[in-house]
């Protein structure tokens, strides 16, 4: 179904925003699901599997919305699976592999708060997205609580957990702000009130949020880096491995129904 209310230029800008949001949730959900069955505690195993399913559910809803915006005949699965690795637009932060539990918590914590700042920047310019974002934010609240609790536990958990957490934050920190990589046509999205603030402003809000949590715990805040335009392109080998895995069954019989 083509949404006639969107002018062509705006459609392209909206599609880029949706693709970046969907790919972020998709890759994050995949990486989290690598813990299903092998998390440090049975109780946490169940929790991270739920978070993974939430993120994949969000990705699915965003790809569905993107499918209606693009209206080129591709459904959510074709959008999610039938692309080459270079066509993915998730942030470089999410290119980092699962790693150990501290790596996972550091990456997920930085992403969760970044996603929250991004969702808080979505306006009422495109009602289907506004409505969807309302649903997403209700679930993301619980992810935030869970991840902040883990950051605090590891920070106060003794020498080894703290050292691992500090090392993990140092490893992913420089890539954390790539979630806010400027979109090609942000001015159109702002003018149409699909975005209420530039992503650079969302990044500033995110930094303030992070600082309020990390500084009292004596943990390093990710360094401020010059905004780059390549924060969502040129993916890592670990993502190429992930891509090879998640497309393997589907590629074995192109065009089949699964």
């Amino acid at each position: 179904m083509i949404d006639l209310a969107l002018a062509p230029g705006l459609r392209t800008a909206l599609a880029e925003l949706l693709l970046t949001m969907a790919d972020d949730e998709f890759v994050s959900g995949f990486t989290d699901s690598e813990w299903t069955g092998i998390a440090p505690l049975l109780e946490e195993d169940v929790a991270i599997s739920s978070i993974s399913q939430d993120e994949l559910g969000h990705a699915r809803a965003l790809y569905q919305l993107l499918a209606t915006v693009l209206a080129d005949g591709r459904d959510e699965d074709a959008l999610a699976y039938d692309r080459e690795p270079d066509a993915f637009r998730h942030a470089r932060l999410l290119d980092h592999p699962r790693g150990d539990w501290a790596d996972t918590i550091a990456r997920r914590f930085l992403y969760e708060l970044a996603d929250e700042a991004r969702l808080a920047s979505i306006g009422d310019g495109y009602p289907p997205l506004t409505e969807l974002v309302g649903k997403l934010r209700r679930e993301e609240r619980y992810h935030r609580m869970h991840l902040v609790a883990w950051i605090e536990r590891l920070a106060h958990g003794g020498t080894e957990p703290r050292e691992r957490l500090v090392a993990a934050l140092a490893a992913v920190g420089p890539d954390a702000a790539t979630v806010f990589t400027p979109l090609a046509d942000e001015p159109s999205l702002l003018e149409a009130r699909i975005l209420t603030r530039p992503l650079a402003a969302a990044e500033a809000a995110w930094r303030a949020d992070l600082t309020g949590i990390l500084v009292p715990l004596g943990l390093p805040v990710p360094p401020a880096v010059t905004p780059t335009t390549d924060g969502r392109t040129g993916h890592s080998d670990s993502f190429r491995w992930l891509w090879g895995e998640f497309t393997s069954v589907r590629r074995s019989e192109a065009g089949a129904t699964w």
Partner: protein
Amino acid sequence: MTDPLALDPVLPVRQRSERPWNDDLPHDERYAHFEAHVTAGGKIEATDWMPDEYRTAVLRFVEMHANSELMGVLPEREWIMRAPTLRRKLALTAKVQDEVGHAQLLYRVAEDLGKPRDAMLDDLIAGKTKFHNVFHYPTKSWGDVGIIAWLVDAAAIVAQQALRDSSYAPYARTMQKICWEESVHIMHGRDVVVTLMTGTDSQRALVQEALDRWWGPLMQMHGPRGDRAKDRDLHWRIKAKTSEELRQEFLTIYVPRLLELGLVIPDPKLALDDETKTWTYTEPDWDELRSVVTGHGPKSQERLEFRRLNREDTRWVRDSILTPAPAAAA
């Protein structure tokens, strides 16, 4: 971890005192009261007195069930990453998550019988305790995902439905929840199989090839025929049906469904006797079953080693949050 709620008596004091085996009687008298209660269909709670023989038998039974849920996640989790659509990915993640949740519930039931979770995981990894034969085999294709979720879970649920009436009440209650979730897994598995069987020739071939490999282990899964009178688990009503009763029930329900989809069951001797309404079949390979469940299956050692390494890799996390902070309490 001990759940504070688990320490509260499940039975109100008055009700507990109405059960004569809880009284301070000579052992044989207590035992007689207990046995009469259980064999008449009565239930036992965690806070009841129970003979060591009963406690040990329930613990062994529940522990193996918990181990099976925990080891059962390994063959399927390999396919979470490869699920070919978002819907399948979500369904498979949810299914494996359920199995982990079942392991957690069952280890808690077992913990209340006196064996700490860590000790159970140590024994599992050391090969001292067992898990179901079907989780010692490799998975090779997406066809396995359908066959496992449909038929392995179906064979399991035939046994588990009978456990909802177990004499050990905490186990029976846990089985209510588990059976409900397993029935959803079966629907997911059947949907995967039906989709493949209505797809391309090579998709149909995937299912048939998987069925050919899984049929032997499925027929062995409930164990060899035994003597009802000698089975202590039946005597104590921990379980309700014999191995052969469960196997017959599984065949009665699932053989027609497999044939309906155009699948060929790889046993030329499989037939229903119209008079006795029982199935005859090629004798399952009981030597294979014994060998597999004692740790000599094709994937037994690899999966146990994977669990051992994973447990070592994540130990620091458990140590950091399960160990009380020093000094702060004083």
